[in-house]
């Protein structure tokens, strides 16, 4: 076992602020949907807008971060151990079998995680962001009283936006639960908070890479 610096500073900031924003947007969004009553309709609408702009800014930064650091490659799904991972979650872990995949700094995500997060980034997030923007600018009048968007019925936009919200909430429930399936129930959350996780670095090449990363981090 080795203490490895696995989640870097921006990644943790991005992860937790995104999580907070998503829950806040869900609260305010479902108030606009008249499912819950918390802030009052007017404030809920206002907060939802402010939070949505914060999330958009965060997403812009995180996209930049993913591409400049090459971290986006983490989400390329590999199918070699896909079924083994499913078997582990459904059968293996109850029998005390070991994880079929090994978490490393270069390969943080197991195949199931990779495809789920890819789905989040390519389906759920774009769905909610695009429909959110359409919703926000729907029938907006500018200084010249021009109607910008009105050809797509608001009903359709709202349907897709709500669908996105349900999908993301469902993702969040399962995601939070799955964090407890690490080596100990809290090890994954601790790692996302501190950046460090005790990992079994069996692969030499990866071990070397992480030590370079660690070295790089130490230099800072």
């Amino acid at each position, binding site marked *: 076992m080795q203490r490895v610096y696995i989640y870097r*500073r921006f990644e943790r900031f991005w992860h937790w602020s995104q999580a907070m924003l998503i829950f806040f947007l869900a609260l305010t969004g479902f108030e606009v949907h*008249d499912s819950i009553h918390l802030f009052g309709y007017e404030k809920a609408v206002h907060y939802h807008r402010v939070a949505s702009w*914060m999330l958009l800014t965060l997403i812009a930064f995180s996209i930049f971060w993913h591409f400049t650091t090459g971290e986006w490659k983490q989400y390329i799904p590999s199918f070699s151990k896909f079924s083994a991972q499913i078997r582990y979650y459904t059968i293996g872990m*109850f029998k*005390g079998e070991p994880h079929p995949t090994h978490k490393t700094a270069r390969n943080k995500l197991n195949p199931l995680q990779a495809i789920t997060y890819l789905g989040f980034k390519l389906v759920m997030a774009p769905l909610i962001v695009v429909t959110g923007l359409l919703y926000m600018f729907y029938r907006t009048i500018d200084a010249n009283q021009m*109607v910008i968007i009105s050809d797509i019925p608001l009903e359709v936009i709202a349907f897709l936006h709500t669908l996105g919200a*349900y999908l993301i909430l469902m993702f969040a429930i399962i995601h939070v639960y799955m964090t407890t399936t690490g080596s100990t129930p809290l090890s994954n959350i601790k790692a996302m908070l501190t950046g460090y996780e005790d990992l079994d670095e069996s692969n030499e090449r990866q071990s070397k890479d992480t030590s370079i990363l660690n070295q790089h981090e130490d230099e800072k």
Partner: protein
Amino acid sequence: MKQVIAPIVVITIVVIMAVHLFHRPELPNLSELQLKQKFAVKHVPSVDHSQFDALKKDFATPQEVTEACLSCHNQRHIEVMASSHWNWERVSYVEGRGIERVGKSNVINNFCIGSNANEQACSKCHIGFGMTNNLYDFNNARNVDCMVCHDKSEEYIKGASAAGYPDRSVNLQKVAQSVGKPGNYNCGACHFYGGGGNNVKHGDLEDALLACDREVDVHMAANGINMSCVDCHTADRHQIKGKLYSVSSSHENRLSCEDCHTGTPHLDRMLNLHTASVACQTCHIPTYAKVNATKMAWRWSDAGHLMDGKPYHEVDSLGNEVYLSIKGSFEWATNVQPDYFWFNGHARHYILGDTIGSFPLKVNDLLGSATDRESKIYPVKVHQGDQIYDPNTMLLIQPKLWSATKGDSAFWMDFNWHEAAMAGMKRVGLPYSGEYDFIETEMFWPVNHMVAPKEKALACNDCHVRENGRLASLTGFYLPGRDRHAGLNFLGKLMLIGALAGVLIHAFARFFTALKSEEINKNL
């Protein structure tokens, strides 16, 4: 620790920024202040009419006053005689009908029905003298009544059933010398009392507005900016801006709040977005008839009952007439929540001679829909009632109601519907089969006055609410908070419950297998 502290610091900063964004102090609304400044300056007359020799004489007839007016204002009668106040009709393009003359002279209303055959009484609200029948000479400038609008002595009143002539008690010389810019008293003389009493017709125009507080109307409040009717209803060459769809049809020369307040009057962008499809009145006039009651229903079919052979009336505990032998039964209401309709500024009317096509019959129909870009949601007073019609010809009947004497077929004298129908229809030149019945009718009055203080305006969840919202009956558009896709909501709940149930089952399974393996380990 550094890795923990840094994100906490950043997150704290973000939270503080968010709090700062959420709590912005209210800014002064400069355009609103400018308007207040503009209307705080009250009109001062530039001349004193009592000093003019032309007015220093005893007037034997009101026409002599008009002649005196025209001796100086020698072109004004042309403007007045081009107005709908004089002609009782406008020429306009009506959707589905083409170019029509529409006005008091040929539409039916849901109150006293119509002016035809009853001109001598109805012309109390005509800006002229001597309209006794339908042969009125609309080209005689001597009959223009300048005083009814321009009297500032507040002594001028028109006589009852006097064909538009002033009451005999009026001192014409005093009135003539006191003329000036029309005040609320002048406009109100007709527009407050239409339909036979205060606030009967409009619901948002009544004599309480002559001295009200801001709770009743922010614009006309005596303790507020104290504006007069003509501050908004300006008149270019005696063509007064603004119209009401009880008698008007087309989207022209309309007066709207936006004329002063602009289309984006709020400091809140979200509220300003509403103005594309919601009229100002909708949120800012939460209720009408705030002081005195307005008539909500009028059933002519109940008219004609006599007590000991004589007409009678009944009054409710608030002093509102609920029954009159000559008119039928009424329903009244105060602090009424308006109904809401999509409306694009065009209206269709039942015009004398039209065949009845729908039950209940809409005597006027506000046009518009959610998909029409010109339409906005407006508050409307809906007035219910029933009226006499001919079931064989399917025409509404214009009855003869008024006469000075008995035996002249007038319903208000003889209480004989058949005679009144025959005389009225003969007069308007329409057939009458000899058979009559009563038909349910509706009339739609957009509500424009009695603007509440902004704290009393509607709030979001008066409309954006699942059930019993103000706009619950309006369809054809998606209203956030009110509307939802039932299937998606069910599916969404299923997804969330499924996810929760799934992880709970998984967690229990892990927990119990862990317990089991511990036991096994112990046993080993």
